[in-house]
């Protein structure tokens, strides 16, 4: 059982990061449950129907979802703020309906026979993705993402192609959600459309908002807390949505930027300040 909890916590951390990556360039995506479904179903088909190796199917389905995410973001990014959120919610709904009505994917009955994921696979991916995000947080890329997120028009005046940056982050976030979805599917053995409904997308976003929107640790903390705490306090499990809701409201009142609100400074002048001969 413990293994299961850790597995789901790991999956949720990956999913929270998939939302966080898109948020790094300023867009809030409620479509990641849909991208997760693309990963689970695509890799499921590849392995069960076409006999692909799982370790080929996962990157392939992630790439497919990445492309799909980038394509969706092209028209979606033309709309701003609340409208973008609505578009991504729409994508989530459409995805579930599309799967339900596609026979090849098992429709409402679901798709079975997905095997091969071990919990440590998820742990390894969490470490790898976390390390990448941590390394990126000290690079020029991080600064440019921060600039696009804070004021994309000013970033544009500096020469940043903000649309391109946003489309790429959307694609990368979608690919990560899909990789998590593929690992998840091949652990569950049997997947159904409702595993990827709008609530899943909503939870991913809430992990990030709860944990903190400005750094990679917040998303991970939010996901881990919201997955594990209800498992250990059984009372909470039944009340999960309610507790979650109350927590979110409280937190937004007290700490609107999440539990871990800090932003990592990408570079410091430090000792150089004196060398430059300040007045």
């Amino acid at each position, binding site marked *: 059982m413990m293994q299961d909890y850790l597995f789901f916590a790991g999956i949720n951390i990956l999913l929270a990061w998939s939302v966080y990556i898109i948020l790094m360039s300023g867009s809030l995506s409620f479509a990641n449950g849909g991208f997760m479904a693309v990963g689970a179903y695509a890799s499921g088909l590849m392995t069960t129907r076409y006999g692909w190796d799982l370790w080929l199917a996962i990157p392939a389905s992630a790439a497919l979802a990445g492309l799909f995410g980038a394509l969706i973001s092209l028209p979606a990014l033309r709309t701003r703020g609340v409208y973008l959120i609505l578009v991504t919610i729409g994508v989530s709904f459409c995805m579930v309906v599309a799967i339900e009505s596609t026979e090849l994917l098992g429709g409402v009955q679901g798709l079975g026979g997905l095997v091969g994921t071990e919990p440590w696979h998820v742990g390894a991916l969490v470490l790898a993705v976390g390390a990448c995000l941590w390394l990126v947080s000290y690079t020029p890329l991080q600064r440019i993402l921060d600039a696009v997120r804070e004021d994309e028009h000013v970033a544009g005046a500096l020469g940043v192609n903000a649309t391109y940056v946003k489309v790429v982050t959307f694609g990368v976030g979608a690919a990560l959600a899909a990789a998590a979805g593929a690992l998840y599917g091949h652990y569950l053995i049997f997947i159904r459309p409702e595993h990827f409904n709008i609530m899943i997308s909503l939870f991913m976003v809430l992990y990030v908002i709860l944990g903190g929107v400005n750094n990679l640790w917040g998303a991970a903390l939010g996901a881990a807390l919201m997955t594990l705490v209800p498992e250990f306090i059984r009372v909470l499990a039944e009340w999960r949505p309610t507790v979650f809701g109350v927590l979110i409201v409280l937190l937004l009142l007290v700490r609107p930027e999440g539990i871990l609100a800090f932003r990592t*400074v*990408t570079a410091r002048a430090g000792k150089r300040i004196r060398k430059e001969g300040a007045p």
Partner: protein
Amino acid sequence: MNATLKIDAVSKRFGGITALDGVSFEVAHGELLGLIGPNGAGKSVLVNVVSGFYPATAGAITFDGRAMTHLPTHQFGRSGIARTFQNIRLFRRMSVLENVLVAFPEHVRSPFLSLLRSRRGAEIDRAMALLARMRLADKADLSAASLPYGEARRLEIARALATNPKLLLLDEPAAGMNDRETEELREDIAGLRADLDAIVLIEHNVEFLRGLADRLVVLDYGRKIAEGLPDDVLREPRVVEAYLGADDE
């Protein structure tokens, strides 16, 4: 005239408001052009159009021989046009140093490749040199949001310089500064001329521009009403009238 920037019959309308009405002038290589006019004359709108922030409703903009009119904003930045904002728009969540680092053109052009070829130490040195020029070196690690007005405006200039521009557009850089700060800024802007192909400087205070600007262009109600050497322009009856009519600041 050997022009770097050509503004040809540029108009800009917002719904019913005509903010710019067929404005034409050129900025020569090596020139510092002062842009003046009463409140609401269209100076900032002109900077917004020339920096690609707003598309022109009509007319054409040519920069270094390149037709810019319909290009997206980032192409203006990459062509060598940099600007500051009348209502300061720093990245307030970043540090002073980061506000400069973020604008380096090699990373701005290919942000994802920056993962492979960032030279951190050298880049910080470069940014510190720009900050030192704007007298901000000792503020490098502070949050940009913590800077007072005058320093925030200087940081906007440092950030614009980090893009390695040919043309710098300054929208009221001395606004909110005291006399001493204004004089320092005037010296520093004069010192920038050697490194830039041209500067366009919006300023209400004509004394600031006298002796600094090579030529002046005067806007009023979205139209160009005068252009020429500062002393000549400031004597023209239409200019005197426009300024007396809207005597402010």
